[in-house]
Structures are given as structure tokens and as C-alpha cells.
């Protein structure tokens, strides 16, 4: 059976089970797709799988809008890992979520240069191994001065759309430091080098799961995930921490007591 048909079946089962009020997935719109909350009894004929949108971010919003609601979601590997990091920071309650686990195809993996294109368990799809981002390897061959020059050139194109922040499931602060004039002078294009982008980069440490949504949303085509991948690797080397690997791992930047008391 076709992959999408299997997902539709799994979603239908979840909806029929009565465990959730709706399932967040993608719906076909013209040649593309859009996020949609499917309810029991809805036709699932237009449920689709690609192009993906940041479903964890939407799920967070829906759960917050109604504290009693329980929802399902079709989750790829990056989306499951994203939810895990959000759960650690009390953004989502995993007990209110049921997932349909979807493994990415080789084509989808290549589109994202994804190193980890499958979830912790698989309901639909076949596991394919991850791939390395060639740009990251290329970048590692540059000297420090060359790297600075590279990023200066990249960030000079930034038009401060805030898309990288707005699209990111891990950006959930109520007040965003990027909108604090003390750190980033408002109203200036490109935003001052390097504060805007390096602040954001530091804030992804221990959270970024490499879902690629920021880079795909960037109107300046800045290879943001190269930066975040390198930071993720450093954090793994220094702290042994891999974002999204498990709900139990303690984030390196979290203070233990706060973590335990749930604040």
C-alpha cells in the first residue's frame, strides 16, 4: 500500500480510538500542502505528507489554546525530537499527545540533508540512514578568518524577516531578545553583525534538532543549519548531549533544580 494511504489509515485509527479530539497533519492545497487539524469523521483523502510545515509549533499553540484538549500528530523524526525538547521545557505535555510515527524517504532526507530522518519508532515508512551536509564539511575546512568573512557575507543579505525565529518550534520565549533594542538595534537592515544571528545561534544550543524549517524560510538563503549543526556537534562533544534523543536527558544549559521542579 502507498505510504500516504498507510498514514491515512493510521490517522483514522487514532481518530476512531477516541483518544484525541483531532490529528494535526498536512492537507493538499493546489500543488502544495498546508497544516490542518483533522477531526473524527473527516475525509482523509486530501491528507498529504509533503512539503512539510513546522507541526510541533502549531501543536504547541493548539494545546495552549485549550488546556483540556488531547491531540494527535503525524510526526517525522525531526518533529518527534522537536516535541521532546519542547516537553523538557514545559511547552508541551506529552501525555496530551498521540503520535503517528513517519519515517522519511531517501528523497525527503536528501531535500533536508538530514542526518537523522526517522523517529524513535516507526508506524509508517522504512528507515533510511542519515546523510551528512556537504556544506558543513566544506565549512570546516575554512580558517577562522575565512569563516568570519563567510558569515559576514551571508548575514549582510539578512532582511530581518524574523522567519528563522517565527518558524522555529524551539523559539517559544514570551519576550524575544532579538526584539530587545539593547542587544539588536531595531529598524536596521541588515541587522547589526553579528548580534542578531549569533544570539539566535546560541539560543538553539541543546534545542535545535535540525528540522531545516529556518533555512527553508530564509528569503536571504542563509545556510543557517550549517551554523546550528556545528553548534550541535560542539555541544555533543562537550556535554554528550543530543537534542531530542530522549525525554530523560538533561539539557546542558538547564539548571538541575529548575528542571526537577518543572519551572
Amino acid at each position, binding site marked *: 500500500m502507498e505510504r500516504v494511504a498507510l498514514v491515512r489509515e493510521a490517522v483514522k485509527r487514532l481518530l476512531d480510538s477516541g483518544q484525541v479530539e483531532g490529528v494535526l497533519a498536512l492537507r493538499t492545497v493546489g500543488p502544495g*500542502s498546508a*497544516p490542518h*487539524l483533522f477531526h473524527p469523521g473527516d475525509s482523509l483523502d486530501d491528507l498529504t505528507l509533503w*512539503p512539510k510545515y513546522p507541526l510541533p509549533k502549531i501543536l504547541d499553540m493548539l494545546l495552549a489554546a485549550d488546556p483540556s*484538549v488531547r491531540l494527535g500528530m503525524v510526526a517525522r523524526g525531526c518533529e518527534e525530537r522537536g516535541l521532546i525538547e519542547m516537553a523538557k521545557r514545559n511547552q508541551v505535555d506529552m501525555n496530551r499527545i498521540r503520535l503517528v510515527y513517519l519515517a522519511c524517504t531517501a528523497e525527503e532526507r536528501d531535500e533536508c540533508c538530514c542526518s537523522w530522518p526517522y523517529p524513535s519508532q516507526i508506524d509508517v515508512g522504512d528507515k533510511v540512514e542519515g546523510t551528512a551536509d556537504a556544506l558543513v564539511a566544506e565549512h570546516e575546512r575554512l580558517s577562522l578568518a575565512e569563516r568570519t568573512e563567510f558569515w559576514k557575507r551571508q548575514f549582510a543579505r539578512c532582511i*530581518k524577516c524574523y522567519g528563522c525565529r517565527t518558524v522555529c518550534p524551539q523559539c517559544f520565549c514570551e519576550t524575544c531578545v532579538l526584539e530587545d533594542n539593547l542587544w539588536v538595534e531595531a529598524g536596521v537592515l541588515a541587522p547589526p553583525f553579528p548580534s542578531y544571528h549569533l544570539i539566535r545561534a546560541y539560543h538553539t544550543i541543546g534545542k535545535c534538532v535540525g528540522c531545516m524549517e529556518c533555512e527553508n*524560510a530564509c528569503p536571504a538563503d542563509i545556510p543557517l543549519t550549517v551554523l546550528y549543526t556545528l553548534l550541535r556537534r560542539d555541544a555533543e562533544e562537550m556535554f554528550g548531549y543530543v537534542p531530542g534523543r530522549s525525554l530523560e536527558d538533561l539539557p546542558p544549559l538547564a539548571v538541575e533544580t529548575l528542571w526537577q521542579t518543572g519551572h
Partner: protein
Amino acid sequence: MEYRNVLTTCIYCGVGCGLYLQVLDGQVVGTWPAKGHPLNDGRLCVKGWYAHSFIHHPERLTTPLIRDQKGGPLRQASWEEALDRVAQRLMAIRETHGPDAIAFMASAKCTNEENYLLQKLARSIIGTHNVDHCARL
């Protein structure tokens, strides 16, 4: 709980990026850039990302208003009264001063259909070519 996305076109510059309006229980709560769109393919500028943010603003006009005398206050009115007032006053001015004493500013912010209708009204009912919009501004 109802959550859906409606594909539409950005209302700011002339590029015409495709975007989704996110609708949660009858409120527009956000946008998503349309992936696969020939112009913006999943990207937006900051205005596009916040194209939803004025829709539910408390200052939205939600009822017709009439000023009974110059310099006086605006008061709420029904559609019946407001449209009657406009129709009668415009037709009276047309009668007294001729069609060209009335001028229409159409809008680069309104749809094609609305611009078509306003110039049709100006030309076929009032009888004037005094219709323009801010193309030059």
C-alpha cells in the same frame, strides 16, 4: 477546536507572495509562507509574516458612521441609512453640478472585482471618468 489554513495572497507590496492565513476557532492567528509558490516558495518578509496582525485590531471599523453636520461628531448608523444617504447626496450633487462634480478614488488595496465595480459605478451610473487610484503615489 477548529484549525485550518487558507491560501491567499499578501496585501503589501506588488510581488504577490502566496501565504496561508492560520485560522483557529474563527480567529486569524498567524501566517505561513506558501511552500512551492512560484514567487516566494516558503519565504516571506517581516510584513508578510505579520500580514494577519491588524485583522482583529480593536480600531477596526465595524459599523457605518454618519456625520450630520460639518465639524460635528460621527455617529453610528445602519447600512440602510448610510447607503441611502450616500446615494441621495451623490445623485443630488450630480443633478445640480453635473457628473464631473463627483470624483472616485479606487484602491490598489482592493480586489480587481471591487475596482471594476467602482469604475463601473462612476462611469455608467454617475457618468464621469473621474476615477483614479494611488498608482502614482
